[in-house]
């Protein structure tokens, strides 16, 4: 089938683009490193050891984090847009990021309450991920429970927004009672950052990503059925509750796990699925999931490349760049199409 090969070609094209963007991302920074050296440092020792040091300890981890964060958030956005049949759904809008923030805030700021050895145990990367994923899972579950009662797609957004404010308020209360050091730690986390990840952190992040991705791919058939709404999906033999739960778990592991490491990152989850639908002319999730994942990774790498302001020593917060890039894109799409295809 013609359509099929066209989509395959698109995925290959996107993969190629991802490699190019990744090379550009690694080579640019406060110090420009020739692309040649990147390949050298993978297979061989490069000519300058300082370059090798920068690449393996700083730029590689950051590029991998960007790829995982970009594609993971984009997939979670796609899952939510299909699950809630709402083009405005995304990890940020539905309060998932706030839920994750609350989990992290309780962990970092609440650690002061339980002092001593116990608090260092609490602050290892695993507990950070668990707290964050749990936070977003609970918020998503609450939003879903509310939507099952209120059968209105607009209400979902309002409920998501309310949960966002609620968790924001709880974080504010927690901050009020915590000391300056903890507060600083939390605020730096909430700015969002792709850098400074340890290889241990990256392996936990990758694990979350792989679990989320596998669950998403296994849910692709049910996601396709859900495009017609719950009643139709049920009439086609889908076990609605079980499948929705799997989709929610996948979303929370992706959004929660990524948020734990890189902080709440805006717009990628919302904007990338819409961007991808512009050039992938299908709603089949077996095509959309890989395409959205690759596009998310590419966009995140581009945003990160801009954020590090090549040639200077300054680095802008990644959150600012994703919003600066993401917001006009969504507005432009809306104005050009006069509606979001979904």
């Amino acid at each position, binding site marked *: 089938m013609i359509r099929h090969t066209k989509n395959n070609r698109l995925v290959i094209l996107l993969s190629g683009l991802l490699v190019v963007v990744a090379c550009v991302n690694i080579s640019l920074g406060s110090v420009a490193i020739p692309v040649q050296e990147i390949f050298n440092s993978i297979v061989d020792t490069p000519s300058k050891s300082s370059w090798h040091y920068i690449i393996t300890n700083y730029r590689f981890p950051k590029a991998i984090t960007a790829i995982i964060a970009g594609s993971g958030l984009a997939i979670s956005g796609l899952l939510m847009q*299909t699950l809630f*049949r709402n083009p405005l759904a995304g990890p940020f809008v539905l309060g998932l990021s706030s839920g994750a923030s609350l989990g992290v805030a309780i962990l970092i700021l609440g650690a002061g309450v339980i002092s001593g050895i116990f608090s260092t145990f609490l602050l290892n990367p695993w507990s950070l991920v668990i707290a964050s994923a749990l936070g977003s899972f609970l918020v998503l579950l609450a939003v879903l429970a509310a939507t099952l009662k209120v059968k209105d*797609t607009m209400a979902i957004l309002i409920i998501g927004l309310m949960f966002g404010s609620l968790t924001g308020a709880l974080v504010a209360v927690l901050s009020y009672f915590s000391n300056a050091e903890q507060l600083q730690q939390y605020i730096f986390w909430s700015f969002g950052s792709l850098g400074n990840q340890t290889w241990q952190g990256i392996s936990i992040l990758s694990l979350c990503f792989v679990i989320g991705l596998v669950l998403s791919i*296994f849910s*692709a*058939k049910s996601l*396709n*059925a859900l*495009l*017609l*709404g719950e*009643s*139709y999906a*049920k*009439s*086609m*033999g*889908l*076990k609605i509750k079980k499948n929705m739960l799997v989709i929610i778990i996948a979303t929370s592991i992706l959004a929660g796990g990524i948020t734990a490491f890189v902080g709440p990152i805006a717009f990628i989850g919302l904007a990338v699925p819409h961007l991808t*639908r512009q050039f992938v002319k*299908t*709603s*089949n999730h*077996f095509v959309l999931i890989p395409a959205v994942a690759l596009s998310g990774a590419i966009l995140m790498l581009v945003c990160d490349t801009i954020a590090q302001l090549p040639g200077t020593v300054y680095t802008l917060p990644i959150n600012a760049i994703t919003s600066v890039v993401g917001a006009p894109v969504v507005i432009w799409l809306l104005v050009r199409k006069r509606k979001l*295809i*979904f």
Partner: protein
Amino acid sequence: MAGMAKHSIIRCQDLSIGYQNKKKVAVIASGIDFSITQGTLVSLVGSNGIGKSTLLKSLTAMLPTLSGSLQVDGIEIIDYSPLALATKLSVVLTQTPASKSLTVLELVSLGRQPHTNWMGSLSQNDKEIIYQALEDTDLADLKNKNCFELSDGQLQRVYIARALAQDTPLIVLDEPTTHLDLYHRASIVTLLKRLTQEKNKTILFSTHEIDLAIDISDKMLVMTPQKIIFDSPQNLIEQGTFNLLFPNDLVVFDKKTGRFSVT
């Protein structure tokens, strides 16, 4: 009954339907008795709010029944797994907030879901059934259009084609002619009639177009506040059943013309 030539595809005996939660039970209708044989076109009529949708939801297992027996193809509906039921019964619902970016072909192909593997890959047989469904509903030329480009009448045919692709002996439609003009209403019901005759499908649809339903149905289910009556249109006219549908102060049913008129 030994002499029954045709196979009964859906059968209700002393069925009660309604809504139930922890606190209370709201019975919408009870004592429902009817049996629909294969290849029959049945229309369900009744005034607004009488419970037509509730009955259809109960018959399609979207709502649990309260008591009594409801059999689909000889087996109690609660004994079916969701997947097994999906091979017996397909639905066309009133417009839901479904994604309209799907193409006609993609939407119709989704009907094959109960028959495909976890990836939903379509075999040659699946594709033949899909193309046949598109042919039967005159959609072959539109198959690559997006659903948001279609008119209401075309979109309704797409959903009927999806039900055909699901390849079930029984199709249940909830008000398939709403929002359509006279010509397209007629085109939908003649399509349904043709499917019962040529494909031996059993089709049950709810409608407010009583005139159209009388003209075309083999059997009718008439929902009145007292009970649900199941019979052929001719018998229902002779028994004056249609006058039980509405309060008699504004509209009356004329037995001679077989039509309602405003007094």
